[in-house]
Each structure stands twice: as structure tokens, then as C-alpha cells.
């Protein structure tokens, strides 16, 4: 947790292997992330990591179902379509499967993003300000869903937020200020 500019997203990027630290090392499941090549880090992400972003990051040209399907296809998971549909049902969007992101509300888009993130059964899920673009009421619905699915799949959730309500629901909260843990 921390205010804007405290370095939360940078830390999340480094932990997820999306970025590299200027010094030190990042250990993930015993492997030094920053010693791996870009492609090896990508493979590691594909197997173990899921993401949820503040601005949802749904591909505008894909329907809700196709957005969920994308990482499943990339991982070569069998019966991907059925699994994607199941996850959309879990987040309550079974009837919105063929809609494009622009036809969905902010809350619905984030629920699609949650379905997409959990569909590959990641071991760790990184969420960058998952409620940052949502109103309070919608944010609560999305957070409830996030924790419910998280519990169901027993995933490690690393959540970056400046929202204390969300922080309070996590098992452990760390404060960042000017790039340092306090």
C-alpha cells in the first residue's frame, strides 16, 4: 500500500518479472528472476502468474469470452473454451460472453479481467490497483469476487492499492513510501 508515486506498481512489475531491478535479486519459487532471459521469464509467467490491471487491459477487438480464452490458448490448455465459459459464469457474466469491452461497464470489464486472471489457475496473482477505476459500490462487488475466487483456487494474491478497505482484507499489508518499505 502507498500513495501515488511511492513505487507500488514498479515493485509489482519487478516481482512479476515484467521489469528488472537496477540492483538486488528477485526470487520466485527458488529461481532468480532477474538472471532469466526475457523469454524464460515469459514462460515462467505463463505457467505461474496471473494479472489484474487498474485499466482492465482487455483487448478491444476481442469479446469477453475471447479475452478470457486468450491466456488459455497461449498455454495450450485443453477444452479452453469450456473453461473460459465456466469462469465467465463464475464472475456472473455468462450472458455477456459475446460482448466487446466497449459494450461492458467498468465493473463488468474488471470481472472479465478477474475471470481471465484465474482461468489459468495461476499460483500467484498480481493485481495492480484493481479498484482504481471503479466507483465504491462496484469496487466492493469486484473485491468480494476477487477474494472469493482467490479462496476457491487457493491462489497467492499480491495486490497493489492505495485503498485501505482493500488493504484491510488482505492477510498481510506492507506500506511503501518513496520507494521504501516502512
Amino acid at each position, binding site marked *: 500500500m502507498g500513495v501515488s508515486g511511492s513505487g507500488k506498481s514498479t515493485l509489482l512489475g519487478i516481482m512479476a518479472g*515484467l521489469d528488472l531491478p537496477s540492483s538486488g535479486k528477485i526470487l520466485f519459487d527458488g529461481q532468480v528472476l532477474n538472471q532469466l532471459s526475457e523469454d524464460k521469464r515469459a514462460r515462467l509467467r505463463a505457467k505461474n502468474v496471473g494479472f489484474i490491471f487498474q485499466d482492465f487491459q482487455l483487448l478491444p477487438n476481442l469479446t469477453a469470452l475471447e479475452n478470457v480464452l*486468450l491466456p488459455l490458448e497461449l498455454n495450450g490448455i485443453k477444452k479452453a473454451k469450456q473453461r473460459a465459459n465456466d469462469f465467465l459464469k463464475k464472475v456472473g457474466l455468462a450472458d455477456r460472453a459475446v460482448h466487446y469491452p466497449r459494450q461492458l461497464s467498468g465493473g463488468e470489464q474488471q470481472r472479465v479481467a478477474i475471470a481471465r486472471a484465474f482461468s489459468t489457475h495461476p499460483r500467484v496473482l498480481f493485481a495492480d490497483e484493481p479498484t482504481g477505476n471503479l466507483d465504491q459500490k462496484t469496487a466492493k462487488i469486484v473485491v468480494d469476487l476477487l477474494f472469493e475466487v482467490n479462496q476457491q483456487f487457493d491462489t497467492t494474491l499480491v495486490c497493489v492499492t492505495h485503498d485501505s478497505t482493500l488493504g484491510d482484507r488482505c492477510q498481510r499489508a506492507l506500506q511503501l513510501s518513496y520507494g521504501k518499505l516502512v
Partner: protein
Amino acid sequence: MMKFFRTSLFLLTRNWKSGELKLISFAVLVSVMCITSMVFLTSKIATGIEEKSGALVGSDLKLTSPSPIAAGYAKKAKDLGLKTTYTIGVFSMVAHDEELTLSEVKGVQPGYPLRGEVRTATALFGESEVANSIPTKGTIWVEPRLLSLLGADIGDEITVGVKSLKVTRVLLEEPDRIFDVFGAAPMILMSIEDLKTTEIFDPGESNATYKLLISGNQNKIAEYMMWAQPRIEPTHLLAQPKDANPRIQRILKRSNYYLSLAFIVNITLAGVAIAMASRRFSKRQFSTVALLRCFGAGNAWVFSCYLVMLVLLGLIIGSIGIGLGLVSGYVLIQEVFSEVFSKPLPDPWVWPSLIGLFSTFILILGFAFPPLLATRKITALRVLRKDLPDPKWSEILPFALPVSLVFVLVFLQVKDFELSGTLIMMAFGVGVFSLVLVYTLIGLLSKLTGWLDFLKRLNIRNVVRRMGDNALQVVAFNLVLTLVGVLFLVQGDLLNLWEKDVAPNIPNYFVLNVVGSQKVAFQEYLKENDVVSNCFYPIVQTRVLSVDGEKVRYGSSFTSGERSVHRLIQVSSSMILDSDNRILKGRWFEASDEGKPLVSIEQRFAERLGVKLNSEIELYMGRKSIKAKVISIREVDWHSFKPNFFILLPSGILEKMTPSYMTSFYVPEKELLFSKHLMEKFPMVTLLDVQMIVAKVRSFLLVLSSVVEYLWTFTFLISFVLLFATILSTMDERMREAKLLRILGISNRQLLWIVLSEFVLLGFLAGAIAVVGAHIMSYWLADRVFGFPYSLNLQFAILLPVVGMVLVSVGGYLGTRRIFTTPPLRLTG
């Protein structure tokens, strides 16, 4: 592997459905369609013209020899399924009553000619009809001129060697002849069997010309040539129709150059259009690629998926393009050229399809793919950091390979290394030059903002900030304007030139041997009949004895024809330099030169004689020799249908040597009896009718002019695609800017000013640079390739920047008009 293809297919279908691939697809479709159609059209026209030129010389291939041709040559042709026939030609004196004259006696076999037709009439000035056979035993067909010279008529007997043969028909047209005013003796046509019995030639001596005519499938002809070329003896000459008639050859050569030029222009424009469309597509894929990378897709994997996606797209769109190209080419041929090419010709399906397929892959892999190289530099971090700048990648370097591939493609179709290489390098040079110039100009512009008002400052800052994009846009606009400009300039010159060739009143008759005492009466007769002639040239037969004191030897640099014909050349005099003559060195005669021993000499003749400016040449004319100084070297258009001479003197010398006169004039075709009456009144003159040649040249030019005009349609279509793709390439950024400015309350008028003034500036820059580029390129083409005089087109120089401004700003407005009508929040970049 399956996953890989599935993802590529997935990317293809999704991007297709969302319209992201629309522009690339359209550019590929139009380009492949145009290229295929163009190749179809040119292949078909080429076959048609080959067929037609074959008809002009009587065959597709001719083996000429001064001695009997070995049977093996005909056997090989027959083995290849080709048709053959022999002819023997001998120059011999022929007689009727007391009259004697030189004639070209030609013996032919049944089946002659293999291409084209022999036309005859049953009476002098009778109706022309196609002969379906050759003269029967004991009979001959003769040219009207010969009948006049011998005072003979149909039914009379003419003595050729030891035989007397009966004239049964008037020979009006015969395909295997080269038009030469001075060289042609009137012809007698007979069967080869009769010729052998006349004893006018001896197979052991080389006073006869033996020809083996061959015709058939063009590929087999080519195969035969490959076989025969290394085997023929030094005295043999193997020639195709295109080698035979210099006039037609020149037209064909120029039209081939033009078609090649149009092909190069179109493929270059197509390549740039696709690269511009793909650049936009690539930029719009950055976030997708970042997300795919975030989900764990490897760099090479993502890149390969896009490559396969493009190949799949190319296969689908390319096939449709090839299909449409073939159909449109076929329809055009049926609509426009079916009347000109009366005989149905095979449709060239395979070659255009192959070129279409090859160009699809070059366009897709060479031009659509390089912009996607940028996606390799996209990292997964982009999903978190929206502020990351677009990756930097070389915009020029990746195109080095496709430019080389285009070169291969152009070479495959055009088969002219120098033309294709120079033009592509020039186009590339124009691109680099404009890139440097635009960077410099925009850099200068950025220093001028201090004293401008806010809106103008904002505008100039926009231009400066988007320097890279703008420079690329100017290069693209510039290429369109330069290449279309070159095509326009060259086409204008070419059509002007051809127009002169098909002018309705170009001379269709030549008159020789008008004696001095009859000249005035002859001129008056023409005047009475409203016939306007060119000037009357006095002619004296002359021999060049020495050059700068050295005796002239007619060595091997002269062809046998030149040795025999030009040892005695026709020399004339004139004080007026005709439009088909051009002084290369020295000066033309002035009034004060009259009567002085000065000469003007034709360039190639001078080269062969070793004559230079100011050389002194000794001429034997009118039974005396005179020494004359060379004061000019001239270039002569020998195909102008006007009398022309190797050597010209000023007036006042030949006139004292009792010259004969010659001229040319035009008589409307409907005046059928004019020539008959003329010959009756002046029986001693020689009248040459060249109407048939004029008509053939005219029909060729009509086809070629139509083709040239049709090619414009394709060039325009591709140019518009390029223009549009270029405008759209910066559309997203303009949208983002417009969205912000409109939220801040800018009026539509102010926004329009910002958008339009930028496009006007870019269009003007592109047009101004194109004026220079187009003129340099067309100067090179006119001078080195087409061989016509180059003239600076001032109108074009003024118009091109204006056209650039108007086209780019209208296109720019149409391409971006959404930003004026869509509510700001709905504007997405």
C-alpha cells in the same frame, strides 16, 4: 505447432473482424489486382504485337543467307512443330519489249507467307484482295511501278533471265519487305520453281538471298533460336520481326519502356502504400503484443504468429487480387482490343498469376512485415507503464531486402537491368533526399515560432513534434507525386510523339526522278489538285572519295546493303533545316553559304566514314569531284516519312549538275485515281505508295495509346491507396490531440485550421520536392531511354506543388473528418 497456427488464425480473424487489417488488405488487393491485370494486359498485347509484326515480315523468324541454307535448319524447325518455307531473292534486270529495268525477283513456295498476307489486284489500280496462293507456273505478279517502268500491263510477258513469264496480277503488298525509298527496286513474285529456271542466279555465287521463314508457337521459336544461334555461319542472319522494321521496332521499344516504367512506378507505390498501412497496424498492435508477452508468450513466438498471420492474409487477399486482376485484364482486352487484334490470341493466364503471387509475397513479407519488427521491442512492462515511449526502430533499413526483391520482380517482368536498376535507385534517392530536406526544413521552421500567434505556434510545434512521422509522410506523398509526375511527363512526350506519327496528313506518297524540266509542271499539277507537298529536293548521285585526304574504304563497318547502295549515295541540298533533323555539332547553312562547298553530314554516316566536324571530304558528283568542308553533323529521324539525306549541301551547287527531284506528299485515301492520273501525266517519275505502312503504324499506335491510358487508371488507384494509407498513419495521434483540444473548447474552425494547414504544408513540400525529382528522372528517361528531346515543363513545375497541396489536404480532411463530427469522448486514438 497447432497452438501456433491457431493463434495466428485467431489474430487474423480478430483483427479482420475489428477492421484493423482493412487498410493493409485493401492496399494488397488493389496492388496485386493492378499488377496482375497489367501483366496480363502487357503479355497479351506483346503476343498480339508479335503476331502483328510477324505479319509485317511474313514470319516469326527469318534465317537469311547468301548461299543455300542447309536442310538441317528446316528439319529442326519441323521437329519442333514449327512451320517453314523458303524464299530466294535476286536483283536482276528484267525486260519488256525494248524496256529494261532493275527488279527484285523473288521466288516463293506454296504456303508463303507464314504470317501476314500478300495483297494483289487483277488490274492496275484495281481493288486490293488477299492472295490465297502463290503465282502458278509460268506466271508472275508484279508491282505497279514495274509495269509503269516497262510500259507493260496485265497479260503481257516479262523476260526474266532466259524465261518469259506472264503477268497475271498486280502485286500491291508483300509482307517480307523493308521500306526503303532508295533501296527498293520494284518486285516480281513467282514460284521458286520458276525462279530456278530463269538462270538469273547461280547457287555457287552469292548474288541471291536465301531465306528460311519460320513461324509457330513463341516458346518453340525461342527454343529454336537457342538451338540455331550458336550454329549459324557468319554470313547467316537470324532475325525476328522486331529486328526487321526499324520504325515499328522503335515504337515497340518505346512502348515497352513505357510499360516497364509504369510497372516500376506501380509496384513501388504499392510497396510504400502497404508499408504505410502496416506501420499503422503495427503501432496499434503494441498493447496487444505487450499483453501477450505479459501472459507469457515469447518474443519470437509472438513475432512468428504475426508473420504467419500476414502470410495467411496474403494468400487469401492475394488470390482474390490475382483473380480480379485476370478478370479485369480479360474484360479490358475483350472490350478495347478485340477489334484491333482480329485473330483470337491465347490468353496468358499463367505468367500474370505467377507474377501476381510473387508480388503478393513481396508486398506482404517485404513491405507489410518490416513495420511489425517494432513489436519485437515491446516488453510486457508496457501493460503497467502507459507512459513508455514507442520503441525506436529503423524505418528504412528493413526495407533494403524488399527493395531488392522488387528489383527482382521488376527484372522478371521488365528484363531490363539498367532501366529497372536506375529507376528504383532514383526512386530510393528521391525518398532519401526528401527525408533529409524535410528534416532540415522542419528544423528551420521550429526556429520561426517566436513571432507567431498561439494557434499558428501550436500548429508549427505539431509539425515539429511529429517530425519523424511528418518526414515519412512527405516522403510517401513525394513518391506518389514524383513517380506519377514522371509517368505523366513521359506519357505526354510519348503520346505527342506518337500523335505526330499518326497525324492525318503525314505523307503517304514519295515521288522520285522528277527531272528538272518537269519540276514546275509537276508542282503545278499538285497545286491544281490541292495536294500540298514537302519541298522538292534536288538529288545527285554521289560517291565519297576521300576524307581529309585519305581514300574511303567501304570496310566491314558497313552492312552489305550499305556497301552496295551507299557506295553511290543520294546527295541533296537545302537551306532550311527540317524539323526531323537536329544539328549535333557545328552550325546550319546561312544565306551567305549559298554556292560554297560546304556540307552537313548525318551522324552515323559520319562515324562510319570517320568524318569529324571541319573535316574535308572529296565528293564525286555530276562527273566531277569537289572538295567540301563539313560544317555540321546532324541527327536525322529516318522514320519521319519525309525525304532525308546522309549529306546535304547549301543551294547553288547541285542545281548546276542537272539533278532529278524528289518530294513526299499526302493524298487522301479516297482519292483513288490521283496516283493513276499522276502516273499517266508524268510516266517517268517513280511513285512510291506507303499508305499500307502508315496504316499499320497507325493501328499499332492506337492500341499502344489505349494501353498507356488504361495503365493510368491503375496508377491512380494505387496512388490513392498510398495517399490514404499515409494520411491514416498519423490518424491515431491526431485523434488523441483533437480529443484533448476539443475538450478544452477549441472550435471546429480552429481545429480545421490546425489540421488543414499541416496537410497543406506537407502537400506543398512533397509537391515542391517532386518537381525536382520528377524532372531529373524524366530528363534521364527522355535522354537515355526513350530518346526524345527533353523539355522543361513549366506548367507542370508550377502545378505539382498545388496538386500536392490540394490532394493531401482534401485527402487529409476526408481521412480525419471524424474528429470534427464525433463527440470528444468518443474519439479514440
